[in-house]
């Protein structure tokens, strides 16, 4: 039980090299609607940070801001800074493609491409013109091992990804992102479409991944947030209400809104 693990650095005392993402007064408008309002938060490296809140409060938008996926929406507007590795990724000169390879993303519903398992995992590498067969083989194997999927699929790498179960597909999506060796992994409700056993698998996987990767996860499931994440941010109507150690947030919330949410008053 990690619920009351107290060995965690307080968010206030982070040194600069312990910060993976530094968000400063981030505001996002989508189709003229203010979705995120002046959000500032520092996401610690090599840890799991959960983002919770009612649906429609802007969790997905916050994740999408970190790899600039909001830009897919034709009418979008982002202000504020997001610092990673000493760069503000919101600057115009930022190379969005390489940003997205550094900041991996896994979606709510597994979305394997209509290709083989192998081709799904190597998709991102091939985009970077890494076509050496041996190196690709190695990278695919490593990614699948890291995503705890290798033993299940090593015999059928060249079969279509569609034959895998939902839980396996979601781990394949994690492997697909890991193949690019991202520093940060964004997961948007990764287990909400999965059964409890598959969920458990993914949760265990995330624990092992955080040794090398900073994980930011959106979840609807508060037990899950409390169980596996080191830090939790609560967002309400586009504003960051509270962001602190998970055990603190779930046992002793500072703000009334947080308390109302975690005790189920918002549904």
């Amino acid at each position, binding site marked *: 039980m990690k619920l009351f693990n107290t060995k965690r650095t307080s968010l206030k005392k982070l040194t600069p090299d312990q910060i993976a993402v530094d968000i400063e007064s981030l505001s996002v408008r989508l189709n003229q609607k203010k979705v995120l309002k002046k959000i500032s938060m520092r996401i610690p490296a090599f840890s799991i940070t959960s983002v919770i809140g009612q649906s429609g409060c802007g969790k997905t938008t916050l994740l999408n801001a970190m*790899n600039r*996926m909001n830009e*897919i929406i*034709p009418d979008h507007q982002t202000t504020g800074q997001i610092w990673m590795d000493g760069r503000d990724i919101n600057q115009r000169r930022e190379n969005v*493609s*390489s940003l*997205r*390879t550094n900041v*991996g*993303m896994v*979606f709510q*519903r*597994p*979305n*394997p*491409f*209509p290709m083989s398992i192998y081709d799904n995992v190597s*998709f*991102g590498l091939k*985009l*970077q013109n890494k076509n050496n067969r041996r190196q690709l083989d190695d990278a695919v194997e490593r990614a699948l091992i890291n995503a705890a999927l290798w033993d299940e699929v090593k015999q059928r790498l060249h079969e*279509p*990804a*569609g034959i895998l179960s939902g839980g396996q*597909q979601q781990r394949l*999506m994690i492997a*697909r*992102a890991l193949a*690019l060796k991202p520093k940060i992994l964004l997961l948007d409700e990764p287990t909400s479409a999965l059964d409890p056993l598959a969920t458990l698998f993914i949760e265990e996987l995330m624990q092992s991944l955080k040794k090398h990767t900073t994980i930011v996860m959106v979840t609807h499931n508060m037990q899950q947030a409390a169980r596996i994440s080191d830090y939790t941010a609560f967002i309400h109507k586009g504003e960051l209400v509270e962001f602190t150690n998970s055990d603190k947030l779930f046992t002793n919330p500072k703000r009334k809104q947080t308390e109302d949410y975690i005790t189920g008053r918002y549904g």
Partner: protein
Amino acid sequence: MSILGHSRSGFIAVNLSATAAAILSLSLLSILMYILVKGASYFAFFPTVIAQWELPSGEQQIEFAQQYHSDAGIDEVTLLLYNAVKQRNQQVTVDKTDIVITQPSTAVWTLYLNNGSLVFGHKLSLSMPDDNGVNLLPYSAEHSAKAKQAINQLQQKRRVTVSALAPLQVKYAELRRIIISPDAPLYERLVQKIDTQQRILQQLDWELAQYRLNFELADGEAESLALSNIEYILNTNALSWLDRVSFGALKIWYFLSDTPKQGNSTGGVFPALFGTLLLVFLMTFMVMPLGVLTALYLHEYAGNNGLTILLRTIITNLAGVPSIVFGVFGLGLFVFVMGTSLDEWFYMDRLPTPTFGTPGILWAALTMALLTLPVVIVATEEGLRQVPDGLKKGAMALGATKYEMIRNIVLPIASPSIVTGGILAIARAAGEVAPLLLVGAVMYAPNLPVDSTFPYVHLERQFMHLGVLVFDGVFHSQNNINASSMMFATCLLLIMVVLVLNSLASWLRFKLKKQYDWQSN
């Protein structure tokens, strides 16, 4: 009670639609059967008969003829005979009451001439020259094989001479343009060379004409034809059924590989088949990139603004424009504006003879591409709409640029629909005739758009087309059974071309669909 009534009316509705479906399939089937039966008779065997009948004047006429399985009625007989005076075949219909005899005969031979005519005769003999002059030999397999060998040799020599002559004549035409004085030595030498070759040619032609087939017509008149003008000499009535079948197969081969003869009323359809296929391929290569790019632009890049809506409206309405209007447009814009400008820029030296400024297969293909563009755009957009957003986002999240995402994810998944668009375009383009008549298709073209003279592909040339041949054939078919069956055979071929192209594309679509079936997830 009400439930019963409801189900009863449902029952009627089901019955009605089943009936409609049955009628539809029946009419489709009967169209196919009709064309199949009519077209197949072009390759069928007809008995050769001795026919004698009474003319209105009371005189009797006696002829060798092919007797058709007539559909003119049971009290009439339709005969195909050879008019030796006019040197062509003639179809006559005789009342059964006037007939004295029609009797199949193994004494009558059928000569299939190179020009497509059928000549009937008996008492065959061969004229074969040797060193001592011309010998008259009885007609036999052995002798005719010998004659054939000699003729082949002569024809081979003739071909060599002709191909030696052709470049000389081209040079002659060039010199005539640039050299003023006709007694320049260069000029004279060339003329001499041409003269020599032409004399050789004349000599060869004369030698060829010495090998002759002599025979008698039904009325006893003696006739003789150069063997080199005869394709086959067959005693059709004496053929075994196996020979008849293989002769039918040979006729099919000739139909596919030979040129039309006697004003498109007999012979083969190769130039038209070739023209149709080339047109379809050119059209496909033009319309597919254009259509797919337009659809991609509309669906992936253009915002949902007034311009897009206008563009969509234009495309939908373009699909409703009558095809003849496309022909007029193609003639006006492509031929007269674009073609004429091309001539002025690149073919100045040939003016006033136009090169691209006349109807030709390039302009025809472009017109058909325009005509089928809406089909391709609509089908492609349908496919693009089926690509799940999740996959697009997934690709972008892995660092794909929009272009890479479209290339690697969107286009493969949409490819079955794109191919469907291609199928519809091909089916439409292969069957359309009216606009083609305006922009380059002709009843008879002396040359194929692809041949062995530089630059090998001549897209400025006019071309023949199966649909146009059918259109032309309808006018012969009133009073000529052979031409009519050829027209139906051409229809059949056109249907088969469309069918084959369609099944190729369907097979491709099936393959692609199996490969990129995201729905099986």
